[in-house]
């Protein structure tokens, strides 16, 4: 069978539904996500009233399964198809946190609502230099690195993963419990406008790896008044390479939005068509099914 389905999903920023787009895992909105989705968040949410459970927010169908192999309870299943999204079984999970520590995408966290009182304990991995300490305050951040607020560190453990990975358990209000993806021990000022500008001005960088287009070229082309992403792509070839814009389309839309004064929504999306990655013609003809 062709393996296009597993690896070929390109969402290109259309973040409706089960977003598995090229956005690197944007957090779903807390409430609405409870309706289900992979890993069954609704069940995890219920079970977390009785015990700590793993919640998985893995969206990109990448070849990866450490979460499955780390779990001694068989509570996470990726299965034969290594690109499939992991599915968790909150009943089988004992909240050991091994999956949280090993996931290279920081896509798993533990949720524990036993304490009640509108508060939840969320356990996330931490790999920065500073020492998180129980009893101190830390900043909870969401999947985009935006600060949600402060919470008290309840516990710090060094469970599995690489030697440097620590698991930090933070007490947060239930409303944000499903949005927390990381902790920060101090404030980071990179959001300050001048700093971002300074960083941007630091030099040219590749925007589109496949077609080798650098930022200044995009800026120049965008400056010609293109009103749609499609036009920008035709004019510059940006995003038209092998990878079909998996890595560049989002930054491009933002750049073009800034230049054209339109919103990213107005600019539209690319229109990737199958096959979504280089495929040998013989495979399409049914001749050779090796995944080369």
């Amino acid at each position, binding site marked *: 069978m062709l393996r296009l389905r597993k690896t070929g999903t390109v969402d290109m920023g259309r973040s409706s539904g089960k977003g598995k787009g090229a956005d690197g895992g944007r957090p779903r909105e807390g409430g609405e996500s409870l309706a289900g989705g992979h890993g069954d968040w609704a069940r995890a949410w219920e079970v977390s009233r009785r015990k700590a459970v793993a919640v998985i927010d893995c969206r990109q169908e990448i*070849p990866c399964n450490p979460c499955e192999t780390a779990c001694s309870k068989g509570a996470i299943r990726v299965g034969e198809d290594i690109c499939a999204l992991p599915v968790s079984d909150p009943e089988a999970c004992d909240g050991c946190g091994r999956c949280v520590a090993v996931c290279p995408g920081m896509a798993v966290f533990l949720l524990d609502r036993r304490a009640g009182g509108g508060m939840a304990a969320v356990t996330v991995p931490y790999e920065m230099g500073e020492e998180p300490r129980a009893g101190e305050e830390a900043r909870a951040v969401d999947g985009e690195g935006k600060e949600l607020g402060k919470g008290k560190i309840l516990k710090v453990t060094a469970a599995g993963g690489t030697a440097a990975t620590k698991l930090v358990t933070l007490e947060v209000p239930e409303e944000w419990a499903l949005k927390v993806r990381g902790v920060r021990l101090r404030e980071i000022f990179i959001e300050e406008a001048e700093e971002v500008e300074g960083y941007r001005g630091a030099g040219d960088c590749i925007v589109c790896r496949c077609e080798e287009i650098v930022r200044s070229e995009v800026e120049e082309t965008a400056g010609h008044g293109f009103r749609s992403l499609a036009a920008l792509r035709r004019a510059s070839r940006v995003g038209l390479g092998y990878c079909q814009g998996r*890595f560049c389309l989002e930054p491009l839309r933002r750049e073009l939005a800034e230049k054209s004064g339109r919103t990213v929504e107005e600019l539209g999306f690319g229109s990737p068509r199958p096959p979504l990655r280089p495929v040998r013609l013989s495979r399409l003809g049914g001749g050779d099914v090796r995944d080369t």
Partner: protein
Amino acid sequence: MVAGEEVTIFVDGRRVTARAGEPVAAALYAAGIRTTRFSRRRGEARGPFCMVGRCTECVMTVDGVENVRTCTTPVRDGMRVETPGGRRHGPSGA
């Protein structure tokens, strides 16, 4: 094939020891080879970037087949891996 067993692959003719089951890109990395191809427009050295089969930075010619993503292709004993268009940065290529 037993996972972890030593196998030999040939990278631009050079003998490289790899572990059965690992991706070609991992074997190259372990052997100190960081360059998988040279970009067409600027001729820059490129190497694995995403390591999960999405970006195509790691494509090489494998057993005569062009544009194979080495990060998601497991090594096989005797496999021939070649830099597309040839190595331009000397025989070690690292």
